[in-house]
């Protein structure tokens, strides 16, 4: 440690003082320095002389810790889905792509002649495949985003903010594991520049950057972000499994159309309800809760998101009001939709507790909606914000005919309304003060 400290102290001379050799790029050095050692500047001579040990680095790193269960689940489930899909296809008569098509990490770990036994896939097979997909996604997401952030910090001559450490991880978890990396890189660049830095950087953005990245991909590259063919990663063209169709639970339920007194899901026998459609497609509530289903890499597991929520609330870095409000709004709107489901598509007829475990709701309400920058700041505002996100999510899912996922649009919509919600809370605070003072 003494050794490390000496290196830091000696390098400091190269950039810390104005006029020193690398002073123009000091934010880049400073970010590395304060990553290693806590900063040593002291409080001004008047005003409070002590400061809490909490800083933004710790705030953000606690959120990242809370996302670890989701990341682990993403790695495992990506491998699990891959091999489950292959087993099914090979069982239906398709040719096994192994060992003709193997990925870079599989080749590195298992050798060039890797041919896993599809009937008895091991945990190692699944994890290696998952890592093979997720590591490049993480590297691209952090690499592109952080580079741009550092460039902007140097331009502004400000310390590098830690906000993107969370955004980078979020982006990696809300895209399908099959996402082409160049599209991901473009999305990261888009979100850092146009959703964040253009508004002034960390703390001043209107929309959640990770949600903006997802929205960008969703609308710019819909073919790689929606449909039934993108949710299971493979080693084939465009990182999907050629010819494999693995719809998400949301699209199964959405396609369960009303037909006479029955719901008829495409390609499936007649069903009595959208829950039936899900069951016939192989989705039980419990599967959806644990998350071993196709979907965006980190979003599938409600259980992992729940662990993350408990961690964040326990560590005091997320607002439980937003999360509880969101779940309450989801249930309330789910029940309302049930009452009017007769005239609606399958998702309206789903019992509310299914909405909780499907799609990106759980992940979004825990990690995206609680973003302190793009959500309201007042406690009352957080309740309203959460409730509306839950309600709008179900509304979009049930009523919108174009695409079944409502979470992304709900969060972005309410991001836009967050200042308005705060405005009303602030006005009521002002009114209360007027009443109290007469």
């Amino acid at each position, binding site marked *: 440690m003494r050794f490390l400290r000496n290196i830091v102290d000696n390098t400091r001379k190269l950039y810390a003082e104005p006029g020193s050799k690398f002073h123009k790029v000091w934010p880049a050095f400073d970010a590395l320095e304060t990553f290693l050692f806590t*900063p040593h500047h*002291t409080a001004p001579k008047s005003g409070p002389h002590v400061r809490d040990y*909490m800083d933004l680095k*710790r705030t953000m790193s606690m959120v990242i810790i809370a996302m670890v269960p989701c990341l682990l689940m993403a790695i495992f489930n990506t491998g699990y889905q891959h091999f489950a899909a292959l087993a099914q296809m090979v069982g239906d008569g398709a040719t096994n792509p192994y060992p003709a098509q193997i990925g870079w990490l599989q080749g590195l770990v298992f050798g060039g002649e890797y041919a896993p036994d599809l009937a008895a896939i091991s945990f190692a097979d699944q994890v290696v495949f998952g890592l093979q997909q997720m590591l490049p996604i993480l590297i691209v997401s952090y690499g592109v985003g952080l580079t741009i952030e550092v460039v902007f910090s140097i331009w502004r001559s400000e310390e590098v903010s830690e906000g993107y450490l969370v955004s980078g991880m979020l982006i990696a978890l809300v895209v399908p594991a099959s996402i082409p990396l160049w599209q991901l890189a473009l999305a990261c660049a888009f979100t850092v520049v146009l959703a964040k830095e253009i508004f002034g950087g960390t703390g001043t953005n209107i929309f959640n950057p990770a949600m903006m990245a997802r929205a960008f991909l969703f609308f710019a590259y819909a073919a790689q972000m929606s449909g039934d063919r993108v949710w299971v990663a493979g080693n084939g063209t465009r990182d999907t499994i050629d010819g494999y169709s693995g719809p998400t639970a949301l699209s199964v339920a959405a396609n369960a159309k009303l037909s006479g007194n029955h719901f008829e899901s495409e390609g499936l026998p007649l069903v009595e309800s959208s829950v039936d459609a899900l069951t016939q497609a192989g989705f039980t509530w419990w599967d959806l809760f644990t998350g071993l289903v196709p979907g965006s890499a980190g979003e599938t597991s409600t259980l992992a998101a729940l662990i993350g929520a408990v961690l964040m609330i326990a560590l005091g870095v997320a607002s439980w009001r937003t999360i509880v409000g969101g779940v309450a709004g989801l249930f309330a709107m789910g029940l309302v939709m049930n009452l009017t489901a007769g005239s609606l598509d399958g998702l309206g007829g789903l019992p509310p507790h299914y909405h909780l475990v499907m799609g990106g709701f759980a992940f979004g309400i825990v990690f995206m909606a609680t973003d302190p920058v793009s959500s309201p700041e007042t406690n009352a505002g957080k309740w309203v914000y959460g409730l509306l996100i839950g309600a709008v999510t179900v509304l979009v899912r049930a009523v919108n005919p174009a695409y079944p996922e409502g979470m992304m649009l709900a969060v972005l919509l309410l991001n836009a309304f967050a200042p308005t919600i705060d405005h009303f809370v602030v006005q009521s605070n002002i009114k209360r003060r007027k009443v109290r003072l007469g």
Partner: protein
Amino acid sequence: MITHKITKGFDLRIKGAPAREIADAPEPAVVAVRPSDFPGIKPKIRVQEGDTVRTGDPLFYDKNRPECVFVAPATGVVSRVVLGPRRLLLAVEIAVDKNEEFAESTPIHASSSRDEIVAALLGAGLWPLIRQRPVGKIADPAVHPVAVFINGMDTAPLAADPGFALEGRGADLQAGVDVVRRMTQGKVYLAVRPGSAPAFQGLNGVEVHAFDGPHPAGLVGTHIHAIRPLKMGETVYALRAEDVARIGAYARTGRYPAQRVVAVSGEQAMARRYVRVRDGARLDALLGKVHGAEDRVICGSVLDGKAEPGDGFLGYYATTVTVIAEGAHDRELFGWGLPQPKRLSMFRAVWPFPGRSEVSVDARMNGGPRPPVNIGAYEAVTPLGILPSFLMRAIQANDLDEALQLGLLEVTEEDVALCTVVDPCKNDVGAVIRKGLDLYERES
């Protein structure tokens, strides 16, 4: 007695509380009076180097209010008049003489009118002890306050306990209350800790309120908010109980009360205890040594004090002197990520388990400056029903109307000191609030 329970707030549990004993500090060789202790005044010097002054003789006055003088806390020779840029008066230093003489005084009688009392206190140099809310500066003698608030408690970390410092001063305290109650047509409120100290029992002419809970339960801003919130245009006078006793001592003896009791606290202080010391004394008289740059000597508490060099002087309003480590060379490897059971923090993210013992502190910021990211820290430590982040934003946008509606006049920098302490983004909330109050004073 009415008890108010304050729930929002945060007690900084810091090592280095003073022992409950009072010692006499040696007579200082030099004392100083500095205009910078009195925010908002324009000092004009009245003495020259070499002049002999008695205890209570005026040294300088406020150009905005010439009757408000600032007096010598000791008898001796003016050894130095320190001027800064543009001949701004920084300090008047007096080499203390062993034989103390006192300036003539205007007596205060039971029958004195308000105007006579005000004139007497102004002339005696005791008026600056009375501050006013809103804005938190020296009270305007022309304004009739709707109430007087006496603060008999201090919840700041390691701060002197007025109840202890005033033990045995019941007569002075009563005499002081009898003086200040004639300042107002309204009531005189005394705020104390629950189960108030013997010094505060049996006082006539005050309405006693007890405040229970963490800091800022002991700040006058909290007391005003809970007891008698101010309407637009209303003013109250605010004094600390120690200062009421000093005014009482002056009323009883006719002599400028130059001695006071100060708590010496903080882990780096040599002897942590209460000391009786002369106003404006050089700090080594109370601290026993001259502290170097590795220590931070603070006149006041770690929340609201001013840092002084080791050979600096006791501030006019300080009832506590806190000495903590500066810490400018201490850096922890991965300090931002590892659990920290021995660091000062309100957050579970720093150490998740309850029952933390007292911690050592230093003056480091523990993080770089960041744009505001509100994780609810301000609201958790602000019991005044204000929304600090919105108030800050209104001030930063120079929107005075909005700031006033959001309760700007209910606070001064001391009321938001905790916000600054707990902010993960290391913003100085107090500085913004003061900017807003300055804006208010300019525009009204």
